[in-house]
């Protein structure tokens, strides 16, 4: 056989092998979906309602026009709604402390739920409505003209709900 014939035979054999080999790729196979379910993220939400100011007698006052005199004590009450979702969710509800000294005394801000002090560490079961309160007082003992025409800006009063890092599972 000459070289041309040998080359043609080799090429034909190669093609035949390729064709034959292609047939061997088909094998049984099956795909199934694992029922892994859906992973859902939890939630952490803090919303503030409309705060109100009241005087010592519990009567609502409009702070835009109200001016305090010695012996006055005003209380700011702020409703808060806490929403915590998550199996390992733990969170802490805190507030900025605006407490200041005389003559216009701003007290510490308190947080309560159902008229009892709020827990330090909140769980999803503790979700619900909370009440923040802060009092501002000009003591009756203020003498002379001390404390007239003063301003105590409480606009910096904010509330923060912060997640506590989950502890590592054993």
């Amino acid at each position, binding site marked *: 056989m000459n070289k041309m014939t040998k080359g043609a035979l080799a090429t034909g054999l190669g093609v035949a092998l390729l064709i034959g080999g292609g047939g061997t790729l088909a094998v049984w196979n099956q795909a199934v979906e694992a029922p892994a379910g859906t992973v859902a993220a939890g939630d952490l939400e803090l919303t*503030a309602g409309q705060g109100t100011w009241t005087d010592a007698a519990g009567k609502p006052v409009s702070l835009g026009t*109200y001016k*305090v005199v010695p012996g006055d004590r005003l209380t*700011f009450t*702020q409703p808060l709604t806490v929403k915590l979702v998550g199996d390992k969710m733990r969170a802490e509800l805190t507030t900025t402390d605006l407490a200041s000294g005389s003559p*216009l005394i701003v007290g510490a801000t308190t947080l309560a739920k159902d008229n009892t002090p709020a827990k330090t560490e909140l769980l999803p079961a503790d979700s619900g409505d909370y009440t923040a309160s802060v009092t501002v007082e000009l003591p009756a003992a203020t003498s002379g003209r001390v404390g007239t025409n003063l301003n*105590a800006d409480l606009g910096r009063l904010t509330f923060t709900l912060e997640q*506590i890092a989950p502890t590592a599972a054993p």
Partner: protein
Amino acid sequence: MKTTLRVAALLGAATVLGLLTVQGTLALWSATASSGAQAVRTADFTVLVRTADGATSALGAGTSPVTLPPVTGLVKGGSRTTAVTLVNATDAGSGAFRARVTAGTPQVQGQLQSRLTVTVRPGTDAGCSAFRPGPGIDLAQGASGVLCVTTTLAAETPASLGGAGASVIIPLTAEQLP
């Protein structure tokens, strides 16, 4: 040896960088809500003094004087009464700020010091035609009252003091009522 040190230094640097980077991952969920608590303002304690000639000034802190119009033409044994109107103009938010204004002992200075008698009494709402008991007057917020200043020149004042003058200082104290 040098290679070992370099490797150790690199590992140390990598560890520090790694730790610093990890700090950023400590951020967890948090939510913040503002209160909208506004500002609390205190009132201005203001008591106005209005004299008979219509001049109005405010009682100030300390010893700020309020000048009354001069009393002239006083004759021996005669007296003159001047009404001073006091107004509680304090802008307390409660609207219930009550103040008591009390007159202290008048101090007479000048040539007529020993001849002039000055008394201060609260007048009625109508003025100084009648007087109320007590050294001072209580004023509700926004209300006014009258203090009557009576100046009497002694009948035995010598004629040599004719035309002489004197200044009278009446300390007024305003205080908040509980």
